[in-house]
């Protein structure tokens, strides 16, 4: 426990330092770009940090408190909550003032999100470190789940945060949602959901994802274009991806045709076979990646549809004069609407076939990579997977044979005592 306590103090101290540095930088940047100089007193963060550190130092040397690190940590956390609350509630805080300026919402958007991201990111890092202080077991698993849920909740919170003001003053409309739609955050939320999916969906091509969302993020005004493209292309038989596949196949075939005369010049042998098999592997890899992207596209398009429905629902409530008093209700509604949309997607023939295709391509690729690896290492004194599988099969068949023979002995035996395996014999005598 002493080591854990020490680790925790060090972790928190480092995280605090990092948080203050990030927040100070963000604030300074915000001052430079948007606000009148000196409107924000960045010393507030220095003071905050100093007070936190003095608290740490005091507790580090105080055996009574370190004996119960959680009691200490709770006090620290309460302190921090109060600080955050005061910070965000302060009427002189330009952050809040600017939240009240509807016409300037977009102007402040990036700065606000930057500060929140730093704060929540720091919190997430702290808790990731805290997780390391757990011993393996049920508590660790549950904390991990709790933490993942909180992370998801905070991502969602961050996504909706710029819209809270308009929800509060009942000016929120689908148009507000489109204006403040944050593509990278939406991607993060979807990715958290994708972590719940099978491995082949987890292993999505990061580069392709980045490109897709670079386009989405390049201009928030592109929301409509992106949405229209996603939603209109998908029901029309994935024309976009069909086109990509066709183009790829044309290029691949052209390259092969171009290389064919050269390949004919090569003598038959291992080198030629290697080139051909590598060519085949690269092709399989590309086909798999394209399918993978298509699957991702389907998932993101569904996620987009779901979150738009949440926005519509909030907008309807606002129109009807209903109060949206807390974020948990928005979060819960989003989870429910998301489930409904994704289950509807999963039940479609398109999804089933897409998943089957992706699985099939993935398995083929994995099998071929395994075989290539075996081939590459065939001269090393290692037992490869194929050989082990043969061994397993032999063991399996021998074991079956033994079972048959044992049963024959049982049948032939005149003994009336139950003939079973050693464990059973002993147990029967004792029971």
């Amino acid at each position: 426990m002493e080591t854990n306590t020490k680790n925790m103090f060090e972790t928190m101290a480092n995280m605090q330092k990092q948080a203050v540095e990030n927040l100070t930088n963000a604030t300074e940047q915000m001052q430079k770009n948007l606000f009148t100089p000196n409107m924000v007193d960045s010393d507030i963060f220095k003071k905050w940090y100093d007070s936190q550190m003095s608290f740490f130092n005091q507790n580090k040397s105080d055996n009574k408190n370190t004996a119960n690190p959680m009691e200490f940590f709770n006090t620290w956390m309460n302190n921090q909550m109060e600080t955050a609350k005061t910070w965000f509630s302060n009427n002189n805080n330009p952050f809040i003032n600017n939240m009240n300026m509807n016409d300037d919402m977009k102007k402040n958007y990036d700065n606000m999100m930057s500060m929140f991201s730093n704060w929540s990111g720091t919190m997430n890092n702290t808790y990731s470190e805290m997780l390391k202080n757990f011993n393996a077991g049920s508590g660790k698993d549950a904390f991990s789940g709790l933490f993942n849920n909180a992370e998801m909740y905070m991502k969602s919170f961050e996504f909706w945060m710029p819209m809270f003001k308009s929800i509060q003053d009942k000016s929120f409309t689908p148009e507000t949602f489109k204006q403040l739609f944050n593509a990278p955050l939406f991607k993060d939320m979807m990715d958290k959901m994708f972590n719940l999916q099978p491995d082949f969906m987890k292993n999505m091509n990061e580069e392709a994802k980045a490109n897709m969302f670079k386009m989405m993020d390049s201009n928030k005004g592109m929301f409509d274009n992106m949405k229209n493209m996603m939603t209109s292309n998908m029901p029309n038989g994935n024309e976009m991806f069909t086109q990509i596949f066709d183009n790829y196949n044309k290029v691949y075939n052209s390259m092969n045709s171009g290389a064919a005369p050269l390949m004919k010049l090569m003598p038959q042998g291992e080198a030629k076979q290697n080139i051909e098999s590598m060519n085949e592997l690269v092709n399989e890899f590309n086909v798999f990646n394209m399918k993978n992207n298509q699957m991702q596209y389907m998932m993101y398009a569904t996620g987009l549809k779901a979150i738009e429905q949440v926005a519509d629902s909030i907008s309807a409530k606002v129109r009807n004069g209903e109060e949206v008093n807390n974020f948990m209700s928005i979060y819960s509604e989003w989870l429910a609407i998301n489930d409904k949309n994704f289950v509807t997607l999963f039940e479609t023939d398109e999804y089933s076939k897409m998943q089957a295709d992706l699985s099939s391509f993935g398995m083929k690729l994995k099998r071929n990579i395994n075989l290539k690896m075996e081939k590459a290492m065939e001269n090393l004194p290692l037992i490869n997977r194929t050989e082990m599988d043969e061994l397993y099969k032999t063991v399996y068949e021998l074991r079956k044979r033994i079972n048959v023979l044992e049963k024959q002995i049982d049948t032939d035996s005149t003994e009336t005592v139950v003939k079973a395996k050693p464990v059973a014999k002993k147990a029967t005598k004792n029971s």
Partner: protein
Amino acid sequence: MNAAGIMEEMTKTIEKLVKGYEILQKIEDVEVATTPKKLVWQSDLVKLYHYKRETPATCKIPVLVSFAIMNRQDVLDLQPDRSLMKKFLDLGLDVYLMDWGYPQKQHRYLTMEDYILGFMNDAVDFVRKSTGNDKIHKMGICQGGTFSAIYASIFPEKLKTLTTYVAPYDFSGNANMLYKWTKDIDIDAMVDTMGNIPAKMIDSGFGMLKPSAEVSKFLGLPEMMGDEAKLTNFLRMEKWKNDCPDLAGEMFRKYIKDLWRDNKLIKGEFELGNHKVNFKNITMPFLNIYATEDNIIPNSSTTAIDKVIGSKDKSEHAFHGGHIGVFVGSKSQKELAPMVVKWVKDRS
């Protein structure tokens, strides 16, 4: 909703995490399956346990229970006050439980024949011989129910009764999207490539029936922190849920292709070894239990067997609850288990 209010709401989430950290770190690993039992038989990875009784059983014919291969049977004895096994003991049954084990790489060649004609048949024979009964009561849950029904159709002479809980028999239609997926997916490629099928893959598939479940179930966790009993119940269930064995490749291949994809079982076209499986051959009394809120196995899939089974003494029972609740929930312990035990005893 105002800036300070929403900030406070968010920071409260953090506070709940802190509280969770404090309490969960103090909890040692929770234990499941603690009702005393003894290992009485083992063949390779499969084990048979006999539950210890303090008093003689009031039902002389023993009961052999088989759970699904894709989950652990520990859920039948999750905790003392939510233990189907303990309840059966309390109500006078002599209970044996199969443990299918954790297939390793070397088990990839185990087939459905090995599981049903081999392990299950050997376990039944062991119980019959060691207790001196020609016939025993057989119970099966979920996939264990399907396997038990297949067994019962091949060896009807060895069973006194058959009881199945939430077992899938008819895999047609789209009531369960997983049934639909298996119509498209290339099972051979999966087994040939991976050997055993990873538990995570199966679990993820079932998870997609309700994608947010893994997140939303933790929404209520912070509120449980002040209630140690509730919290440990949650942790036990989580422990069980995370403890999934991989599936032996060849068993998976036949199970999914013949049953899930081609639906041969209910059509009377399924073959196991040299046996043609025909539910008309099940002639012993049969009790079929389904859960009205089952989101994993559609009710129509479970009840379909009633039209094709040979038993004249057959009963169907609708349990008002979900797939897991049927063997874990308090209503299951209070109402369902006594009904099942009475049904079994009446036929002993």
